[in-house]
Structures are given as structure tokens and as C-alpha cells.
């Protein structure tokens, strides 16, 4: 936005003239000059007795007022323009006042010289207020100097009294510096507004930091889990090996064999659990070009008996000619397996699982609609949290769906859940289409 960039620019040059170390030195020189001018002016006025007419002073006061008005009007939006307008008006008014004081012959110099000098100073200084004030004063001094020396192309200038010139210069210096002072005050206001904005953005940062801190325990938990998994994997592997040897050495007829087999089952479960855990923190496999329909077919074939035992009927409606998915085949298999097993477990008394696939040139999807009780609203998002399970007593780890979503997201895909109470749950997995050759998968 133009307003914003102007504001930031103004803050920049306001800073070098007002707040910087160099700015402070300039301030000192400026004050000394002004005081010297004021003293000289007052002294000359006292000696000479010449004073400007009330109308001239009125015009000067009016110019100052107009300048202030310009600053106030453009204070918030486009402050640089405000200062430009103010200075232009101020310079023009000073010029007209000069004409009144010095005579019509001085008009061209006054009417053109002062505003031009003011605008030139303003644009050179990037509208830095004190720079403009100085440019204005110096410009006017130069004009007067040239006029006094007869170098200015105007006839009646020789008549100009030194005291009047000095008074002029003095008033101009006061007005322009006054305007600059007001502008600076305006700038301060702008910068304090900027500070407020900065504070706000800091508050935003704090909020983000707090949010990050809130997710930090999850990340820490992740690291903890990875470490725990590693620590457990060695003893589990040792148990598995030793059980193998023990079972091989125990005859089929040995009454202790069933006990060993139970231990073996327990160890197997631990091994599987650890495998799931390590999958959770394993970096992604390289995305290949996977035929979603085929992997779905493989998984259902693999689960055939389990689905029959669970009394779950599967109906499939596969889109033909789907482009290949950009994901590792093993990963996609794992995701589908997790989603299907989750649906089967949700339908404890059996039911129907409708599977549909489809997609476009960007991504393809598989949707799994079950006829179970559905997922309560409150659990809909939580089902993707690690360790969230409603089946812990049945050995649920609460990792299946969260791992699946992680895997899909790593490949730019997504796993979504929709549910209406009583109408079952619908899980949709989406995978990006593999780039490159336009190779169609099998129907």
C-alpha cells in the first residue's frame, strides 16, 4: 500500500534528522542560528524602527495555519504529501507577504523562488521536515542576497532595507522550522503508532510462540516415544531370538510348549507395535507411481478371511483409468490397511464397507464408507491424534490413523474423516498424481 510505504520512508528520514546523533548536532546549529537571527532581527528593528505591516504578518500567520492544516489533514494517510502541501503553502504565503513588503517588482522571485526551493528541498530530503525548513530558509536567504546585490533581475530591489531582509529571513526561518517541528511531532506520532503496531505484531509472535509451545510437548513426546521404542527393541529382539531357540528345542508334546507359544505371541505383538511406532517416525519412502486400484485389490485379497470372519461385506466401485499415485507402494498399502481395519473394528457386529475411487489430473482418492455407528463429533478430529483410541482394551494402539495421515501428508496427500451419527463413518484418502509420463493405471 502506498500509504504504508510512505510512512515507513518518512520514519526513515525523520529518524536521521531528528533522532540520530547527526540530527542532534544539526538541531544545535539550527537553534543557534535561529537565536542569532532573532537577536539580530530584534536589534535591527529597534535601531531602524521599520516594521512589517499588520497585513503582512496576517498573511504569514495564515500561511502557518494553512501549513498546519495540511499537516493535520494528511496526518494519517500520506503524511509526506501533507508536509509537501504544507510547505508549498507556507512558501507561497511567505512569497506573497514578501511582495507586499518589498513591492510588486519582487513578485516573480517571491512567487516562484520560495515554493520551488521548498519543493526542491522537500524532494531532495525525501520530505524530511527539517531539511525542507533549512532549504526554504537558505533559498530565501539566497534570493534576498541576490536581490540586495542587484543580481536579481528586478529594478526596485536596491531599495530593500537590510533590516527588512533580515526580518524576512527570521520569520521564514521561524515559520519553516515551526512547520518542521510540528511535522516531527506528527512523525513521532506516526512512529508511536508504528511502535503500537510492532507491539501488536509482537503479541502475534507471542501467540505463535505459545501455540508452538503447545505443540512442543507433542514433538517431545514423539522423541520420547522414538527413544523408548529403540530401548525396547533390543530386549524384544533378544526375546524373539531366544524364544525361537527355546521353541525349536521344546518337543511338540512338551506340556510347557503352549506357555512358550503364549510368550511368543506376546513378543510378536510387541514387535508389531514397535514396527508401527518406528513407522511413525520413519522418513518417507520415495514416491513411486502406484496404481491405487491394484493396491486396494491386494489389501482386500489379503484381508479376505478376516473380513469374512468379521461379517463385513465389501462393495467396490473403482474408477477406471486412474493416473498413478505419487506415494510409496508399501506406504499406500499400510494406509489402506489401517483405514480398512479401522472400519472393520468400528463394525463390531458386521456390516458393509463401500469403497469408491476416483480423481482428476491432480489427485486421486479412495473413499471408505462403513455402516458402523459413526464417529461422535468430538472425536472426529481426535481420531488422527497419536495414541487416541476407543479400543485400547482390544489392543488398539491409537496409531493406525495418525500414521496413515502422516504418511499421506508427507506425500502431499490427506486423510479426512466425515461422519453423521447413525450413518456410519466415511474416510477419504487423497494422494497426488505422480508427475511425468501420462501412464494410466489398470482399470
Amino acid at each position, binding site marked *: 500500500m502506498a500509504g504504508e510505504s510512505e510512512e515507513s520512508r518518512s520514519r526513515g528520514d525523520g529518524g536521521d534528522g531528528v533522532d540520530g546523533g547527526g540530527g542532534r548536532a544539526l538541531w544545535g546549529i539550527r537553534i543557534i542560528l535561529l537565536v542569532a537571527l532573532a537577536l539580530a532581527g530584534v536589534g535591527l528593528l529597534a535601531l531602524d524602527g521599520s516594521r512589517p505591516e499588520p497585513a503582512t504578518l496576517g498573511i504569514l500567520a495564515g500561511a502557518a495555519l494553512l501549513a498546519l492544516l495540511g499537516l493535520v489533514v494528511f496526518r494519517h494517510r500520506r503524511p509526506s504529501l501533507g508536509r509537501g502541501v504544507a510547505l508549498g503553502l507556507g512558501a507561497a504565503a511567505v512569497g506573497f507577504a514578501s511582495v507586499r513588503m518589498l513591492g510588486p517588482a519582487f513578485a516573480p522571485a517571491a512567487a516562484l523562488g520560495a515554493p520551488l526551493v521548498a519543493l526542491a528541498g522537500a524532494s531532495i530530503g525525501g520530505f524530511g521536515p527539517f531539511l525542507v525548513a533549512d532549504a526554504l530558509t537558505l533559498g530565501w536567504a539566497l534570493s534576498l542576497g541576490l536581490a540586495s546585490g542587484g543580481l536579481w533581475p528586478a529594478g526596485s530591489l536596491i531599495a530593500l532595507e537590510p533590516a527588512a531582509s533580515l526580518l524576512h529571513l527570521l520569520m521564514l526561518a521561524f515559520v519553516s522550522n515551526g512547520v518542521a517541528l510540528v511535522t516531527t511531532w506528527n512523525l513521532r506520532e506516526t512512529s508511536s503508532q508504528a511502535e503500537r503496531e510492532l507491539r501488536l505484531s509482537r503479541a502475534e509472535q507471542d501467540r505463535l510462540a505459545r501455540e508452538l509451545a503447545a505443540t512442543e510437548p507433542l514433538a517431545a513426546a514423539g522423541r520420547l516415544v522414538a527413544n523408548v521404542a529403540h530401548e525396547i*527393541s533390543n530386549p524384544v529382539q*533378544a526375546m524373539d*531370538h531366544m524364544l525361537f*531357540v527355546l521353541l525349536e*528345542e521344546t518337543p511338540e508334546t512338551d506340556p510347557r510348549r503352549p506357555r512358550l507359544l503364549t510368550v511368543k505371541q506376546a513378543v510378536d505383538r510387541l514387535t508389531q507395535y514397535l514396527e508401527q511406532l*518406528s513407522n511413525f517416525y520413519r*522418513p518417507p519412502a520415495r514416491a513411486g507411481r502406484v496404481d491405487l486400484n491394484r493396491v486396494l485389490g491386494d489389501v482386500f485379497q489379503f484381508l479376505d478371511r478376516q473380513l469374512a470372519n468379521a461379517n463385513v461385506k465389501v462393495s467396490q466401485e473403482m474408477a477406471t483409468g486412474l493416473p498413478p499415485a505419487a506415494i510409496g507402494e508399501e506406504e499406500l498399502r499400510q494406509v489402506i490397511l489401517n483405514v480398512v481395519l479401522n472400519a472393520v473394528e468400528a463394525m463390531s457386529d458386521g456390516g458393509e464397507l463401500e469403497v469408491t475411487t476416483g480423481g482428476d489430473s491432480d489427485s486421486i482418492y479412495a473413499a471408505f464408507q462403513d455402516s458402523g455407528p459413526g464417529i461422535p463429533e468430538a472425536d472426529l478430529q481426535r481420531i488422527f491424534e497419536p495414541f487416541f483410541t476407543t479400543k485400547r482394551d482390544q489392543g488398539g494402539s491409537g496409531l493406525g490413523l495418525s500414521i496413515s495421515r502422516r504418511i499421506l501428508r508427507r506425500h502431499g496427500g490427506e486423510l479426512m474423516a466425515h461422519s453423521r451419527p447413525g450413518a456410519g463413518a466415511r474416510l477419504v484418502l487423497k494422494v497426488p498424481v505422480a508427475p511425468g509420463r501420462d501412464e494410466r493405471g489398470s482399470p
Partner: protein
Amino acid sequence: MRAVDRSGHIGGLPRVLVVDDDEIVLSALAATLEWVGYEVKTARNGHEAAQALRRREYAVLITDVKMPGLSGIQLLERVRSQTPRTRVLVVSGYPSREIEEEASAKGAALFLAKPVDTTRLRECVDALVAADEVSP
């Protein structure tokens, strides 16, 4: 100093060197592989393993990755230069694609994540020994 035995076998049994800094994994691996029918030597760290490799040639080296001193990957580099015929099976408790790729680039024949299932372990070691017997 003993002459280096280049056969990789003692009394017909293929030799396997197992390296892991975890004692219980080490003894369980040794017990299993011995039961299966291998001559097993164990080492608790990379340096012990490097010493063992200097004395004898092994058909298969099974090594952990993260160990104090010489890591499994560094050990793998030595094996490649000292006894290139030894097949290396790298096992890691912190499996990652980077480690797997590094191990494979440095000449590991196989990579497995812990906990290694016994059946899988047997299959792998058998396959590596068979490959060793076939190759010249």
C-alpha cells in the same frame, strides 16, 4: 601372529561375526545363529570387531550402527577394504533412509530395522551365506 584363515568356514560351518553394544542382543543373536548352524563370534564394539576381522575372514558380518567408538558404518568401510568377500548385514535401532542409503552406498548387502524378527534374520543370513558360496 596367526596366519589369516581365508576360508570363512571352520569344520564346514560358515562363520558369522555379530557386533552389538547391547549384551542381550548379542547373546541372543549368537544363540540363534549357532542353533541355526553357524560358527558365531561376537564383538561388543567396532574396535573388537575390527580386531576379529583382522584375524579371520567371516562369511557374514552383522553389525549395529550406533556403537561407542567405531560405528557400524565405519566398520563397514574397513570390511570393504580388508575383507571384501564378507557380506554385511546392517541392523539399526534408529532406522532412517539416510542410514540405509549410506550403508548401501558403502557396500552393505542388507539393512534391517530392530527389532529383527528371527525368521527374517535366518532368511537373510542364509541368503548372504549362500551368495558367498556361489560367488568366486
